[in-house]
C-alpha cells in the first residue's frame, strides 16, 4: 500500500496525539502546536494519552473515526504505537511523528508514515557526556539521575552517555537511580546518593528538573554545586539556564519542545507533493556559560 496523500486545502482538521502533560516540556510542546494551529486557522483535535501507549493508540483510532486530514503523533514508545501508525495508513490518513520515532524494523518513514521530526536522545546523552569530559579532563565520579524507569528517553539518554564514557577510564558512574524526571524525586534521590557516595564529583541528570532538584540536594548537604560537584543535564529550560548563569550548573543539551512551526511547515510541504526526507532533524543547541545569558530569553 502507498503512503496516503494529503490534498491541498485552505483549512485542515488535524489531530495531535500527545503522550502526557505532566511536565513543562510536554506542556511547551502542546502549547506550540496549539499556537501554530490557531495561527493557521486549522482545527486541532487534541488528545492526551496520560502516559499510556495503549490509550494513545485508542486516541489515534478516535481521530481516524472523526476523519481528520492528518495526524501528528508524539509516540509514547517505539513499538506499541506501530498499530496506530498502521491503522492510520490503512484509513488513508498521513501521519507525522514528533519527538520520538517508532521501531524502524516494523514501520518506515516514507512508506508507513510521512516522516519523523525530532532530535536524537542517544545523541543528547552523548553530548552531555562530552561536555562533562571536557570540563573535568576526563576524570569524574558520576551520579546518574535516570528518567522514568522503562521510558525511551531514559533508556536512550543513558545509552548515549554510557557509550561515550566507556572508553574514558577516568569517568565512572558510581551510582545510578531513577528520579522519575521530577524535581522532588530527583532531589530526594540525589540527597540519598550523595549521603552514600560523598566522593561524587559530578551529576548527570536525564532532564533539567532533576538537575535542579540535585542542586538543592547539594546545597542542603553543604556542598557547592558547580564547584564541588559538576552537573550536566538535558532539556534547556529557563531554570537550568539560570543555574548555568549562577555557576551552579555546567551545561545542558537542548531538546527543544517548540515543534509547532516545523511540524505544520512539513505538513504544508507534504501537501504540495514534495518529497519529505525520512528524518527532519531538529537541531539542538548546547547551553553553557558561554551562551546562557544571551539565550535565556527564549528558553521555555
Amino acid at each position, binding site marked *: 500500500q502507498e503512503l496516503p496523500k494529503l490534498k491541498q486545502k485552505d483549512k485542515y482538521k488535524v489531530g495531535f496525539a500527545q503522550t502526557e502533560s505532566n511536565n*513543562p516540556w510536554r506542556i511547551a510542546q502542546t502549547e506550540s502546536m496549539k499556537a501554530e494551529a490557531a495561527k493557521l486557522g486549522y482545527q486541532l483535535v487534541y488528545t492526551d494519552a496520560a502516559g499510556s501507549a495503549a490509550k494513545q493508540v485508542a486516541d489515534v483510532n478516535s481521530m481516524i473515526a472523526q476523519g481528520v486530514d492528518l495526524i501528528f503523533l508524539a509516540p509514547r514508545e517505539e513499538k506499541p504505537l506501530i498499530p496506530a501508525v498502521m491503522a492510520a495508513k490503512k484509513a488513508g490518513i498521513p501521519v507525522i511523528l514528533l519527538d520520538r520515532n517508532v521501531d524502524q524494523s516494523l514501520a518506515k518513514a516514507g512508506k508507513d508514515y510521512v516522516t519523523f521530526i525530532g532530535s536524537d536522545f542517544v545523541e543528547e546523552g552523548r553530548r552531555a557526556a562530552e561536555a562533562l569530559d571536557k570540563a573535568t579532563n576526563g576524570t569524574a565520579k558520576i551520579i546518574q539521575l535516570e528518567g522514568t524507569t522503562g521510558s525511551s528517553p531514559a533508556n536512550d539518554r543513558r545509552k548515549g552517555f554510557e557509550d561515550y564514557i566507556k572508553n574514558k577510564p577516568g569517568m565512572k558512574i558510581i551510582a545510578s*537511580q531513577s528520579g522519575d524526571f*521530577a524535581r522532588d524525586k530527583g532531589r530526594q534521590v540525589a*540527597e*540519598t*546518593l550523595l549521603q*552514600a557516595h560523598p566522593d561524587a564529583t559530578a551529576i548527570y541528570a536525564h532532564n533539567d528538573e532533576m538537575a535542579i532538584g540535585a542542586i*538543592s540536594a547539594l546545597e542542603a548537604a553543604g556542598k557547592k554545586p558547580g564547584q564541588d560537584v559538576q552537573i550536566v543535564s538535558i532539556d534547556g529550560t529557563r*531554570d537550568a539556564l539560570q543555574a548555568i548563569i549562577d555557576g551552579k550548573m555546567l551545561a545542558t543539551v537542548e531538546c527543544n519542545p517548540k515543534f509547532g512551526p516545523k511540524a505544520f511547515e512539513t505538513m504544508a510541504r507534504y501537501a504540495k507533493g514534495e518529497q519529505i526526507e525520512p528524518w527532519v532533524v531538529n537541531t539542538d543547541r548546547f547551553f553553557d556559560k558561554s551562551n546562557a545569558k544571551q539565550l535565556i530569553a527564549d528558553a521555555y
Partner: protein
Amino acid sequence: MADTATTHPPAPARSTARPDLRMFLTRHGAWVALALLVLFNLAVTPNFATWQTLNVNLTQVCAIVIVAVGMTLVIATGGIDLSVGSLMAIAGALAPLIFMGKLFPLPHLYVGIALAFVVPVLVAGAFGWFNGFLITRLRIQPIIATLVLFIAGRGIAQVMTNGNLQVFKVPEFQYIGLGRLFGVPFQALLMLVIVLAAAWMLRRTVFGRQILAVGGNERAARLSGIPVVSVKRRVYLISGLLSGIAGLIVIARNSAADANLVGLGMELDAIAAVAVGGTLLTGGRATIIGTLVGALIIQLVRYTLLANGVPDAAALIAKAAIIVLAVWLQRQARS
C-alpha cells in the same frame, strides 16, 4: 446475686509471667522491624551513622507522615481517602498563586505569605469536607467518593496553573520546608507536633473515642448517640487540612510548585505507612505512633535500597517483600 463476679475464681493475671516472644512481636512488631532495618544499615550502608543521614530521612518522611496521620483517622472510621495527593497538588498550586500576587493584588508581601499559609490549607480542608459530604450525605462508598477528587483534584490544580511549573524564591514562605528551629528542620518539628496531637486526641478525647466507635460498629455507634455523620465529615476535613499542609511543605522544599507531580502516588505511600504501622484497615482500631513508625520503615527501606544501588526494578520487589514482612510480623501474635 450482685456478687456474681466474685463467686468465680479470680481469673489468673493475664500471662504477665511469660515473656513471650510472640506477644512481644505483636505489641512491638513495627518497632522491631525498624530496629532491624537500622541495624542492617549500620552494618551495610556506607556513611549511615551521620547526622546528615538522619536529616535527609527526617525531611523526606515529613510529608508522608503528615498525610498518613489524617489517613489513619479516616481509616479508623472504616473509610479511606484516595484524594490526598490531589489535595496536596491543589494546595501547592494555590500558595504561589497567592504570594506571587497572581490571584489578587497584595498590599504587602507578608500579607501574601500569611494568606499563602492559610488559604491553601483551608481550601484543601474544604475539599476534604466535600469528600465527607459525598460519603455521608450521598452515601457513596469512601473509595469511590474520594476517587472523584483523586481524578478531578489534580485536574483542578493543573487548570489553576495551566499545568505550568511555578518557580519562586520566597524564604519567608519556604521556612516551612527549609527552615530550622534549634538546628532541627522546622518541618520535622511540625510533623512531631501533629503526630503527638493526633495521638493524644485519639486516645484521650471524646472525638477520638467516637472515631473508633464509628469504625468499630457504625450502627451501634449511632444508637449510642454518636453523631456519626459529623464525626465522618470531620475526619475527612482533617485529612484534607493535613494534605494541604503537606502540599505546602513539598513546594517550599523544592522552590517550585508543579501541579502535575506534587503528591503523586502519596495515597499509596500513606496507606502503606498506616498498614505497616499496625492500624487495622477495616477500622475500629488505630495507632498514630504506629503510623509514624510505619512511615519511617518505608522511608528507611527506600533509603537503604537507593543508597546500596539496588536497581529500581529489583527495588520494587524488595519493597513489596518488606511491606508484607512488616505487616505479617504485626499480625503474627494477634491471631
